């Protein structure tokens, strides 16, 4: 470990961020004991060989994302991110709480709008959101769930406190990397798994499928679930195929679907087959040319009406974007208090609402110290980090903010926590975030233990998006009580177990031949 981690503590001190692996004085935290032990045994040559083989596995398996029309493997770093059981417990509850609040908020916003009447958030905020779709106003989706799948982005600030950075309740992606990363790590760095119990992630597709089936329109006995993809050119196409494959359902494109009489069918070799639940992986705008963009060839005309009539469940529901609008985000703590009568378990990042005059003036004075984000962006698009921006960029930003204050929010620059990451011939601290995934089946919100840890591969960079040079790490949640017996119970041997006999007694052919030979 000595040479691989040579300059690590200096680099970590430079960034001033919370390091997930090392506490003060370059001592590995308890949760990282096994990992650091395993890494200590390895030489640079071993580590690079392992990393190469993991990258090759990803290419072989087609674990890629589409970047500017090119398939690239999603870089997986060899050092996992480890979350101890007690910290995970808080995160898990916090994420579930948030999902429940957003679910309630969406139901309300597309219904009575009590939240507005009660003065928790301004009506204008909802109605000016680009993703507030009036087309889905006034009906409860069949199955009663809107946020089937969500990814709540969480970061850890310099003090080590988890904070929610943003909510994704439209089409959160990345879960396929969680599944693939675990597979690759189990084979790439088996020593690090050691004898600790790491909570498995493999049940995700089954959880998702059962949640989707559970929220099918009423009266359907054996619901047919499909995954709706925009097609092979989508950047997350790999994920669509993986999930459809692991759930054992059809992966359909818009042209495979037909809407008739407010029911949805898919074209199969055996004629048209009814579809009950659509796991939608395309943006609302492209879903239904009757309601949204009329030039969209990706969707299927009539889906929204079918959903309204209760003929099909669309997951996640149409119009969810209003809940992950970044300006609404700044109200989520209030929403949690309003709907659930609880205090938020995970805090937000401090956010300036630029519509408010004072805040705006304050922000415009300190643009070079803040992060400014468009409210409806995703994937780090349009985001400006003040300290890294040039003067021209800041001036341009200033003009745009003044022109459209509703379209932007500002946050202080967070020093995201760091995890050692292989770069060149040694490990250096790199900033990470975390996207836990939650599946809501209407009764219960299940949070996938772990989630996607994205890492900015450039030193000092705070942008972790894969489209901007980010990679990922396998995320391990340690189990609370290792599920191992305190003493090794003598194992029941295979031969002495109770035998149930159902086969006929062996007939006499067995020895006939030998007898004859004798």
């Amino acid at each position, binding site marked *: 470990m000595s040479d691989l981690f040579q300059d690590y503590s200096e680099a970590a001190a430079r960034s001033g961020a919370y390091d997930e692996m090392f506490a003060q004085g370059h001592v590995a935290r308890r949760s990282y004991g096994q990992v650091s032990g395993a890494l200590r045994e390895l030489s640079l040559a071993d580590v690079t060989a392992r990393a190469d083989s993991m990258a090759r596995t990803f290419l072989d398996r087609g674990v890629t994302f589409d970047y500017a029309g090119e398939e690239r493997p999603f870089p997986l770093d060899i050092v996992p991110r480890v979350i101890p059981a007690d910290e995970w417990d808080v995160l898990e509850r916090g994420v579930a709480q948030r999902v429940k609040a957003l679910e309630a908020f969406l139901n309300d916003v597309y219904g009575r709008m009590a939240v507005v009447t009660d003065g928790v958030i301004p009506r204008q905020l909802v109605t000016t959101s680009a993703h507030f779709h009036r087309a889905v106003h006034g009906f409860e989706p069949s199955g009663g769930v809107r946020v089937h799948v969500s990814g709540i982005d969480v970061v850890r600030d310099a003090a080590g406190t988890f904070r929610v950075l943003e909510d994704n309740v439209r089409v959160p992606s990345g879960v396929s990397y969680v599944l693939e990363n675990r597979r690759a790590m189990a084979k790439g760095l*088996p020593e690090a798994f050691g004898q600790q119990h790491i909570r498995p992630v493999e049940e995700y597709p089954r959880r998702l499928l059962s949640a989707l089936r559970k929220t099918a329109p009423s009266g359907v006995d*054996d619901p047919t679930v499909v995954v709706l993809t925009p097609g092979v050119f989508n950047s997350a196409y790999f994920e669509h195929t993986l999930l459809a494959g692991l759930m*054992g359902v059809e992966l359909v494109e818009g042209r495979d679907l037909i809407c008739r009489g407010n029911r949805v069918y898919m074209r199969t070799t055996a004629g048209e087959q009814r579809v009950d639940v659509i796991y939608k992986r395309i943006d609302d705008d492209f879903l239904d040319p009757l309601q949204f963009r009329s030039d969209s060839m990706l969707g299927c005309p009539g889906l929204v009406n079918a959903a309204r009539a209760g003929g099909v469940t669309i997951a996640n529901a149409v119009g969810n974007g209003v809940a992950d609008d970044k300006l609404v985000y700044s109200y989520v703590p209030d929403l949690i208090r309003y709907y659930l009568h609880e205090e938020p378990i995970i805090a937000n990042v401090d956010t300036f609402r630029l519509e408010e005059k004072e805040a705006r003036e304050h922000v415009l004075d300190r643009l070079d110290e803040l992060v400014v984000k468009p409210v409806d962006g995703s994937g780090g698009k349009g985001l400006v980090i003040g300290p890294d921006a040039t003067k021209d960029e800041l001036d341009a930003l200033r003009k745009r903010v003044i022109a459209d204050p509703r379209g932007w929010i500002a946050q202080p620059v967070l020093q995201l926590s760091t995890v050692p990451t292989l770069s060149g011939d040694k490990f250096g601290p790199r900033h990470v975030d975390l996207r836990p995934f939650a599946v809501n089946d209407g009764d219960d919100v299940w949070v996938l233990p772990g989630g996607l840890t994205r890492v900015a591969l450039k030193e000092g960079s705070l942008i972790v998006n894969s489209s901007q040079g980010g990679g990922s790490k396998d995320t391990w949640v340690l189990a609370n009580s290792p599920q191992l017996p305190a003493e090794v119970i003598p194992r029941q*041997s295979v031969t002495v177990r109770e035998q149930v006999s*159902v*086969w006929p007694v062996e007939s006499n*052919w067995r020895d006939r031949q030998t007898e004859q030979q004798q």
Partner: protein
Amino acid sequence: MLSRIAESLFWIGRYVERADGTSRILDVHLERLNHLPLEEQRSVARELLAVMGAKPQSEEFGLPELLHALAYDKHSASSIAGSLGAARENARRARETVSQSLWESLNTTYYGLNQHRKDVVGTYRFCNWVLERTAMVRGLADTTVSHDESWLFMVLGRSLERADMTARMLSTRDVQSAGMSWVNMLRCAGAYESFIRTRRAAFGDQHAAEFLLLDRLFPRSIVYALRDADECLAKLDPSAQRVGFINDARRIVGQARTFLEFHRTDDLMSELPEHMERVQKAVTQASDAISRKYFNQADEHAWVGEVS
């Protein structure tokens, strides 16, 4: 054709399939095994070896020894390297009968056996490599050898061994009941996607076992493999008897298959060990019967390694 050649072909089929099955089992179990405490690791390693039909050679038997015994030991017919070596040896003795490309691919495989690191990580890659090579051998056998008697013997060996290997995969469930989920059981057989597509939301031990045991369309299920073997035997001995069978192998394979196929049960899981035991027994007996009938059991064994 010559009995000796037929025998070599039969064993090429068996050994290649054995290497394939063993690497599947090893690949999946290694992952679990690696996470166990040392003491448990030892006992599980022993039991796993027992399921694969071998005995530990030394008192000290842990993970490294298991890797050696199942993957790299060239002198053991139950290891991957041993099986592939034996398959190549058999092909060498039947070189004039097997196609050039089949021989070459077996030979290349044999010489590639040493080019792998023998630690846990290297073994994962080794297993993958073996899966690829065996798939290639099977593909070449199917596409470059006429589907005549010689090919039938190869397929016969392959089908019997496949039934046996799937039975062992299912038996390993017992060994690691703590950590071995049905998902892994299916992964072992490469059946996960097929299973999930046919069963939709019906998950669980029972369904997975049923799939690997009884599915009529999945090529690695026991019933499917036994039916394949049965068909080969029927083609090899077309003398249609109106009553009964002269051929013991057909009787054995047929009885095992029909028993499984038409057996009705409420509790498959508790019967599973017996099914597995009987399937393995049937395969051994069928193999013996085939030897007696076709290979003219000579005193000298033409193949390397064990008899079963």
